[in-house]
């Protein structure tokens, strides 16, 4: 790596080398049975340079000539974007606020142990109802990130992640009920009971299919479904959309758009969360960045280049989506502050409404304008304060920026979703719901 940097430095103004080495081992169960074990070793490197003030980028994986990316990056810099930043100078990772993202017991976990976890999960579901189909994946992942730039910055860190995910399917006479759930953490402390208990509860709620009439009604989004409302918001807060003025939130900084209880953070400093790291993918310290606080738009999130162009500072949100991508503004972990209403009280509070737990078509449609429109893949009807059964052929639609103004309450217990997002239940006063006649 040093050698490659040395050779690059001889030719260009400044340069940055980012390298990933990872190992992923999923153990897959299909239709209740152990089906396959995969072992995926990956390594790749990306070189970003600033040559005569312009950015060049090239990446490679495998291959015999690691130096060929230097010439490619230089060739590309000829047409490259004007650099609005320079790479960070020397970085010191100090020990005082040490972030925990590595657990060696995950790395050492044997395939046999992972098989056992999967078998236990399936057994528990089968005990409840032997006709359910279970697909389970137990996955361990560890990676090493190495970073080096021509201004002397040099760091590396290791990270682990462990997850249990499962899909349960109940098939009856052209009615398929599919429930998906997963838990994940950087620490080997997952409780498979948490996974199965939640699933079994939803199965019980969903035993009967009930009818619903199209109208506006109160809706509870479970933590699972909260991204329906927040995907448009984080798209709108992306520094790049703001810079291009395609975000509906462009001129709204410091404006109070929502109720006091709405506070949203991009937080890369949480121990063992999937999106945490001491530094982002271009060497800027990750932090807890308030995006919305007390209903006020506080910050947009930036990487170095976008921040430079906007006349702002990087917020430590320079994220690479794979080795082939240059850093771009991205969310570390998305955290919505919890409220004070228990989920059970929300249900009791509703005369007629629905609970949305899984949707189809997330991110479909004109997200940047705030719009969402989704099929409710898994949802339940509430009638007179009680869960009455499962709903089918139902769609929800609205504009997230507007709908979030109608929050009655947020749940008192936030839940991690996918190891990277943490949401409480969200109780909306009214939302447009369309059902098949």
């Amino acid at each position, binding site marked *: 790596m040093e050698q490659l940097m040395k050779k690059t430095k001889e030719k260009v103004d400044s340069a940055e080398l980012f390298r990933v080495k990872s190992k992923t081992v999923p153990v897959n169960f299909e239709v209740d049975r152990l*089906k396959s074990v995969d072992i995926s070793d990956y390594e790749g490197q990306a070189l970003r340079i600033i040559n005569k003030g312009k950015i060049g*980028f090239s990446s490679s994986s495998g291959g015999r000539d690691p130096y060929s990316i230097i010439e490619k990056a230089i060739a*590309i810099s000829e*047409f490259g974007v004007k650099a609005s930043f320079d790479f960070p100078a020397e970085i010191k990772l100090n020990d005082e606020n040490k972030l925990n993202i590595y657990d060696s017991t995950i790395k050492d976990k044997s395939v046999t142990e992972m098989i056992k976890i999967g078998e236990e999960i399936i057994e528990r579901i089968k005990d409840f109802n032997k006709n359910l189909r279970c697909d389970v994946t137990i996955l361990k992942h560890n990676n090493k990130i190495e970073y080096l730039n021509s201004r002397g910055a040099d760091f590396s860190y290791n990270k682990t992640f462990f997850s249990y995910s499962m899909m349960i399917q109940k098939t009856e006479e052209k009615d398929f009920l599919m429930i998906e759930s997963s838990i994940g953490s950087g620490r080997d402390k997952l409780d498979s009971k948490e996974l199965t208990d939640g699933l079994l509860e939803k199965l019980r709620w969903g035993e009967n299919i009930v009818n619903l009439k*199209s109208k506006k009604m109160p809706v509870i989004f479970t933590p699972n479904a909260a991204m329906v409302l927040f995907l448009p918001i984080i798209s709108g807060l992306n520094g790049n959309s703001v810079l291009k003025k395609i975000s509906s939130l462009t001129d709204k900084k410091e404006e109070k758009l929502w109720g006091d209880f709405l506070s949203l953070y991009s937080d890369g400093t949480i121990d063992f969360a999937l999106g945490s790291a001491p530094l982002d993918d271009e060497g800027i310290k990750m932090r807890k960045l308030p995006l919305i606080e007390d209903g006020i738009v506080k910050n947009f999130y930036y990487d170095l280049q976008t921040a430079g162009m906007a006349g702002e500072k990087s917020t430590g949100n320079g994220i690479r989506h794979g080795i082939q991508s240059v850093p771009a503004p991205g969310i570390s972990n998305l955290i919505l502050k919890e409220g004070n209403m228990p989920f059970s009280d929300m249900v009791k509070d509703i005369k007629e409404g629905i609970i949305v737990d899984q949707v189809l078509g997330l991110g479909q449609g*004109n997200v*940047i304008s705030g719009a969402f429109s989704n099929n409710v893949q898994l949802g339940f009807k509430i009638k007179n304060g009680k869960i009455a059964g499962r709903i089918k052929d139902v769609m929800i639609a609205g504009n997230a920026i507007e709908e979030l103004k109608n929050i009655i309450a947020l749940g008192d217990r936030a839940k991690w979703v996918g190891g990277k997002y943490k949401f409480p239940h969200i109780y909306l006063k009214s939302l447009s719901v*369309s059902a098949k006649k």
Partner: protein
Amino acid sequence: MKEILKNALTNVSKADYVEIRLEKKATTSIKFQGKKLEKINSSQEIGGNVRALVKGGWSFITFNRCDELKKKVEQAINVAALIGKSKSELVEVPPVTEVVKRKLDRDFRQVKLKEKKELMENYNNIVLNYSPKIQSTNIVYADKFSTIYFANSEGTYIRQEKPFLAASITAVAREGDNIQMANEALGTTKGFKGIEDISLKAEKAASRAVSLLKAKSVEGGEYTVVLDQTLGGVFIHEAFGHLSEADFLYEDNRMRNIMKLGTKFGFKKLNVIDDGSIPNFLGSAKYDDEGVRTKKNYLIRNGVLVGRLHSRETAKKMNETPTGNARALNYRFKPIVRMTNTYIDNGKIPFNELISGIKKGIYAKKFYGGNTTFEMFTFSAGEGFMIRDGKIAEPVKDVVLSGNLFTVLNNITAVGDDLKMIEGAGGCGKNGQAPLPVSFGSPHLRIKKVVVGGK
């Protein structure tokens, strides 16, 4: 290469089946957003995998260091042996040795980066200069040339070249807080010529984004809907096609029962086909990623379910013939059952006849995206119009269609006579393998009682 792979596959008698797949690829991508060139990259990747089957248990090992293949084969066999407890089942296919090369109308690997960039810049300018209401753009160019080396323990050796090239043009229009987008895209395996003059697509994207500013949101409810060829194609791919992928059925008796061949499955004039052997379409290849020859497969004939898509394992387990539909996104993924080029065959009804007689309905065109979970599907239209008294009326926006596959297949009331295959820039996603190049198509379709989301 042939010798290296063959050598690595000697002495594998402990396994029932082993395959090695190596891939070498080079990609270029260019992106304009607004006036700025946002990204211009080139990357190269070499990697491979070994997949082994022992007593019904699979292992799959991927890597970037392609040396010591023999050792990797051994590791794969050992891992598979750890979990295999039943019987390995793979349908027999004849071993082949073949090199499949591709001839391009113009080889994009020889086109200078400068030319690619200037071409995209030109499309970008067409959109930007279309109207002062155009706020931004998103112009993406991507090319990829892969060479895939495949060998298995049954003596097959195949080298296949897979070119892919795509251009996607998105226009973003804005008026106050009202922001609208429209996209036109093109994907091809045939070479650079296909994207050399798509100025018309750039204009179309721009004009549609601007006209969407004036469109009213559609009123939610149940409508008779006419789908254009793109949405018809998306529908058959998303809603029906995924259900005919046998990997979800073969070990699930209840699902098998529902998808029993011979079941009446919809409108009697409905014919659905998946064909990976059409030359040079996005989903085409002479051999799939298990070395099985691709072919034309009828899925629905005259409204009756007659076939489905298979890998070697699912074909054997369901006692059906192989179809050549095991595909992998790249060397980091194992082959799974996927569609190739999927379409609804032509009917006889001209478009005018299709819409006449609809008192109040929706004409839905283009698409933003689609998704499905077996019986339920949803997809959003890129453009929509009301149909009033048998005529196309005012434009509407935010048209999201949703429904139950079985119901909708039965609710198709007319199949048009204007089949068109769509080759887009995106692709299909399944089990984390996306975007896999596919094409799809359909004539115009009339469907009654479709739920449309809206305010």
